[in-house]
């Protein structure tokens, strides 16, 4: 299929900060310059621009066009992807199909947001009418419901969620781009004793909104070869599902669109969960990663805690997971935060993860979660399988 003919030739990332004193377009410029320097591409060779959503950009309906203008990129294709935390991986998939369709040849996928410093969002959604009057904080509240329901149906050993939190924090300590505030080791007891936000969701279950940017330079394999770039990463499977089981009034909140999205991505890639060399699941809350393990077939539904108990998720463990800390320990760069785990997966496959480099780089799986619906699980789910040199 066409996606396999695509090559990621470079990745870039800024440090994640609690509140940026630099403009979102300056962060974007950093990413552009870094990608050009790493790959040897000229600016004029970039003829596509795909952006993730951005809370800073949310006030501008011309966001991709305005950013192309700011960065002086003359492009044949531009768009902003608006599926929340799925947007960065979704942007990569869209870059691949745009290149395969001949719309453009080389795409800058740019994920930049300064939500903490400058949020311009004014959402039109159900919340104003149906959840603001109830005092819903948003995602933490929803993950409170999801967690309580999960515990009711299957039982839940919170120490196992803590084990994931500890492994991710170990990664952040080794990641110089992680937000400084979180680069201190934690224990399972620290996790269990952290204060409740929305029972049973704790502080150390949750992401901290930060600012930052990342990006990928994507072109055709043929073009990468022509440029003499042999070190590439290739998307070999992708699944995306928005509003899973939308035609049902009540949906089991422990079941998500990652099941169909994962099946599709794994079938395209010709792998199953047991073949995954490193796993980079979207982490807005710790339990989201466990539910994704179940949906992707690492274990049966309801057996996530047992699975976690049996595995080591550190970079040198048997199933390396979000080796740079994930969003929960590296900081969530607003709506660009879905780029953090994607970039880490690509970095691992390039073999450029330094002190936290995994040994098995035969593939990496990255996922996304986007949007919180009414009394359901989450709106969008994506799964992508990446391999080095296709």
């Amino acid at each position, binding site marked *: 299929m066409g996606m396999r003919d695509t090559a990621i030739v470079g990745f870039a990332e800024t440090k994640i900060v609690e509140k940026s004193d630099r403009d979102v377009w300056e962060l974007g410029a950093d990413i552009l310059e870094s990608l050009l320097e790493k790959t040897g591409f000229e600016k004029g060779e970039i003829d596509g621009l795909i952006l993730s959503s951005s809370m800073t950009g949310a006030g501008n309906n011309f966001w991709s066009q305005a950013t192309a203008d700011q960065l002086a990129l003359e492009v044949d294709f531009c768009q902003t992807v608006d599926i929340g935390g799925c947007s960065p991986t979704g942007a990569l998939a869209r870059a691949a199909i745009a290149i395969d369709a001949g719309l453009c040849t080389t795409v800058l996928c740019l994920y930049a947001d300064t939500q903490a410093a400058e949020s311009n969002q004014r959402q039109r959604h*159900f919340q*104003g*009418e*149906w*959840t*603001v*009057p*109830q*005092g*819903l*904080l948003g995602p*933490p*509240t929803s993950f*409170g*419901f*999801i967690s*309580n*329901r999960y515990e*009711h149906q299957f039982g839940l050993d919170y120490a196992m969620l803590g084990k994931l939190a500890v492994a991710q924090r170990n990664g952040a300590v080794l990641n110089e781009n992680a937000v400084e505030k979180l680069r201190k080791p934690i224990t399972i007891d620290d996790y269990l004793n952290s*204060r*409740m*936000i*929305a*029972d049973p*969701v704790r502080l150390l279950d949750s992401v901290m909104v930060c600012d930052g940017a990342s990006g990928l330079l994507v072109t055709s394999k043929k073009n990468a070869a022509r440029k003499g770039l042999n070190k590439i990463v290739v998307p070999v499977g992708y699944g995306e599902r928005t509003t899973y089981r*939308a*035609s*049902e*009034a*009540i949906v089991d*909140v422990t079941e998500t669109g990652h099941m169909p999205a994962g099946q599709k991505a794994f079938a395209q890639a010709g792998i199953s969960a047991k073949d995954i060399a490193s796993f980079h699941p979207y982490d807005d809350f710790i339990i989201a990663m466990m539910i994704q393990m179940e949906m992707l077939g690492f274990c049966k539904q309801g057996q996530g805690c047992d699975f976690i108990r049996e595995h080591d998720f550190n970079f040198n463990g048997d199933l390396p997971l979000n080796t740079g800390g994930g969003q929960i320990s590296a900081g969530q760069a607003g709506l660009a935060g879905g780029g953090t785990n994607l970039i880490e997966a690509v970095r691992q496959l390039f073999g450029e993860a330094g002190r936290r480099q995994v040994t098995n780089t035969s593939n990496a799986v990255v996922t996304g979660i986007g949007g919180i619906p*009414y*009394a359901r699980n989450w709106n969008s789910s994506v799964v992508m399988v990446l391999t080095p040199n296709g």
Partner: protein
Amino acid sequence: MTQINDTRGIDREPPKWRSFSKPYWDATREKRLVIQYDTDVGKYQFYPRATSIYTGKRHLEWREVSGKGEIYSFTIARRARPPFQGHEPFFIAVVMLDEGVNVMANMVNCTVEEMKIGMRVKPYWHPLSNGTHLLMFEPDRS
């Protein structure tokens, strides 16, 4: 018994309705709960939408229901934005109505120890400044 803020003392703005949800809010003026019913498939849906979630057609009518149901899940909000900020903790529950839809709401007359998934509940109507009422729930001890 651990008491928890029932949120009745919080001064909240009445929500703005949409063209297709107005019948819901109109009925709450008389403390009546009406929800959308798809006459083709014989099923209810909530929250109100412009279309049937089942068919994509608009064969919907408003039906009055009892509002009785059971707790599907819940959380205790310990952090909130204004005007709820400073009034934590309070419950936000997901209630599965007997008609087969989930509704999110605050809880009154309910202690932390009493709150359980599966607990039977009945509606409680909280007055808002524009004459409509906000749907809350309380334990149905009958």
